[in-house]
């Protein structure tokens, strides 16, 4: 049946994609590998956001909160206590999940929905940013620098020499994230998430404990996001409150799923595929603009400007994102084919005569 094929189809696509991605670095130079790293990195974070924002419908404008918790936790553990980031990442995920639990419980208990929920998450992220700037253990606003190393250290997730190792790490993250998303989309958890997104009251009437499931969504999303934060610091080797908790982070995280399509399996990846190269191209143009655009040479902000325009265009003309819109068109094509098969427009009953007593009486006695 189409549905079963659907599950397997996504896994098959993922398997093929993973294979291709494994061999990709062979044909690319370091610069291009870095772009690939960023594509996978944002796709991974986008997937994490998507679980809560796209599937469960709890739109978060402050995912930087979880990202930053992960980033700082693993960094402090590494720099101050020599704990491997692989372990630190898990601890960070635990903290983030706990924070998500508290935040989710508070927000949902007080009935925050829609834009109140979004603004509330935004406020929390900003609060964390300001508080982090005051905490000495986090080196306040100065930030923490991970001491650079010249060699490669898998134990410390730090590769001073071979940049492509970072690529394989993030590829691993990405694949795990995709597996989780695909599995979720076809599981009871995923269906309950989507039911909550569509209509909470109806979901509750069908036996869904909406409070519990919403919190689960937040916790999964926050844990995954935090791990992405840990990776980022290992790659970038520096963290400060703005990099960890800044609005820019929250926006960039949700940008890919929005443009690619929320609530879809491949949306965040599609969004990352589009946006990250776009960012690079823009940056390149700003550095060396063609003659008719010479006035933007060296100017900062052109890439974000484009993001802003893209968001506006997507919200107005493609609210389901790229993947979402494609899925809708596919559905419409299928319905068209079905229509021509049955020969009539699908409806239920066409009224011709009013009800008579005969029609209402039971057809069998007793």
């Amino acid at each position, binding site marked *: 049946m189409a549905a079963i094929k659907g599950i397997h189809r996504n896994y098959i696509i993922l398997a093929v994609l993973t294979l291709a991605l494994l061999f990709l670095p062979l044909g690319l130079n370091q610069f291009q590998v870095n772009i690939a790293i960023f594509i996978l990195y944002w796709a991974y974070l986008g997937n994490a956001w998507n679980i809560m924002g796209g599937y469960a419908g709890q*739109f978060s*404008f402050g995912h930087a909160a979880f990202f930053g918790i992960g980033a700082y936790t693993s960094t402090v553990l590494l720099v101050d206590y020599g704990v491997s980031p692989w372990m630190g990442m898990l601890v960070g995920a635990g903290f983030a999940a706990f924070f998500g639990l508290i935040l989710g419980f*508070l927000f949902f208990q*007080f*009935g*925050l929905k*829609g*834009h*109140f929920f*979004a*603004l*509330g998450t935004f*406020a*929390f992220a*900003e*609060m964390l940013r*300001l*508080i982090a*700037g*005051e905490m000495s253990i986090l080196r306040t606003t100065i930030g923490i620098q991970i001491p650079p190393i010249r060699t490669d250290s898998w134990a410390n997730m730090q590769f001073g020499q071979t940049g492509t190792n970072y690529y394989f790490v993030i590829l691993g993250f990405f694949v795990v994230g995709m597996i989780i998303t695909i599995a979720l989309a076809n599981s009871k958890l995923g269906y309950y998430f989507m039911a909550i997104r569509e209509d909470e009251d109806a979901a509750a009437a069908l036996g869904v404990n909406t409070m519990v499931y919403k919190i689960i969504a937040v916790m999964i999303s926050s844990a995954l996001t935090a791990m992405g934060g840990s990776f980022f610091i290992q790659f970038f080797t520096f963290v400060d409150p703005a990099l960890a908790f800044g609005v820019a982070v929250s*926006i960039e995280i*949700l940008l890919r799923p*929005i443009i690619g399509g929320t609530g879809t399996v491949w949306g965040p990846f599609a969004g990352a595929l589009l946006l990250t190269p776009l960012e690079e191209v823009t940056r390149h143009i700003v550095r060396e603009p063609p003659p008719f655009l010479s006035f*933007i040479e060296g*100017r*900062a*902000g*052109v890439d*974000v*400007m484009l*993001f*802003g*325009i*893209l*968001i*506006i265009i997507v*919200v*107005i003309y493609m*609210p389901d994102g790229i993947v979402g819109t494609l899925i809708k068109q596919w559905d419409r094509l299928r319905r068209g084919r079905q229509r021509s098969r049955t020969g009539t427009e699908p409806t239920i009953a066409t009224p011709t005569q009013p009800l008579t007593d005969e029609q209402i009486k039971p057809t069998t006695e007793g």
Partner: protein
Amino acid sequence: MTLTMQRRRMIGGAVLLIGAGLWFALQFGAIMGWLERFDVVLRQAVVTGILVGSIFGLVAMGLTMIFGVLEIINFSHGALMTVGMYAAFLMYSQLNIDPYLSIFLNVPLLFVIGIIVYRLVIHPARDAPHHNQLLLTLGLSLLIENLLLVIFSATPNSIRLPYERGLVNFGLFAIEFPIRLWGVTIALPRLAAFIFAVLLTGVLYYILQFTDLGRAIRATAQDKDGAALVGINVDRISAITFGIGTACVGAAASLVLPFLAVDPVAGNTFNIASFVIVVLGGMGNVLGALLGGLIIGLAQEIFGVVFMGTPKLLSVFVIFILVLFFRPQGLLGRG
């Protein structure tokens, strides 16, 4: 409640506010004397808080009106204020127009910009779900901020009014600025901003309560469909409301230019503060916005004194979270 009863309530509220303001002004000396028992720094914080709070209130009034009629939280409100600040700056630096005069140019300019933004961006997305609309205005703010960044670069610009220190002649009387009373320093630009802000708030309030346009706006805010049924062009009112809301930040922009530096992100603090104020005062509630503005202004300054070194902005977020949890309808309820 009949319309006359509601009007009575509104007038009553306005009278109360004006009365309280007058009483406060008259008792200023006594209050300052009482405050003398406290640290002069705290006193300064209270005064600065009220002065600044009036501007917050003006900005928030615009935002709350937009929310009342269009039901969207306009995340680009702050960015539009930055536009106004740059406009006022240019008018001063290039055309030598004093900001307290150019305000009369800035307000219509921002009004028109608001209408354009509404037509191009807001109106096409009116049927989108709420979080998408929030995203839309977010995208808009990114666009505006970075457009300004590209055009003007990140270097802050500021102006100093030549007459802000020393004797200012008002014809019948002259005042030495900055004013020093009871240990508190009041600078000319801040006082002027306060006075203008209060006046403009009054004008806006008058328009809303006593003109046909204002009635139409309030009607649309209360019930879009009902308003349409009685012949109000909801689309036109929405555009005008968005224009007025943007004009508010245009006015505020001119008023803060003399004492705030302008860079592409100058409007950010006002952005965040204004949507907290809107929620605090009650979404769509214009008096609530004013009250909320004063509260936030005071809270920020007092917080800054009590918790020296900690960013003042934190207080705004704490208040925000508290309001979201314990009184999401705001202090004065929805307008």
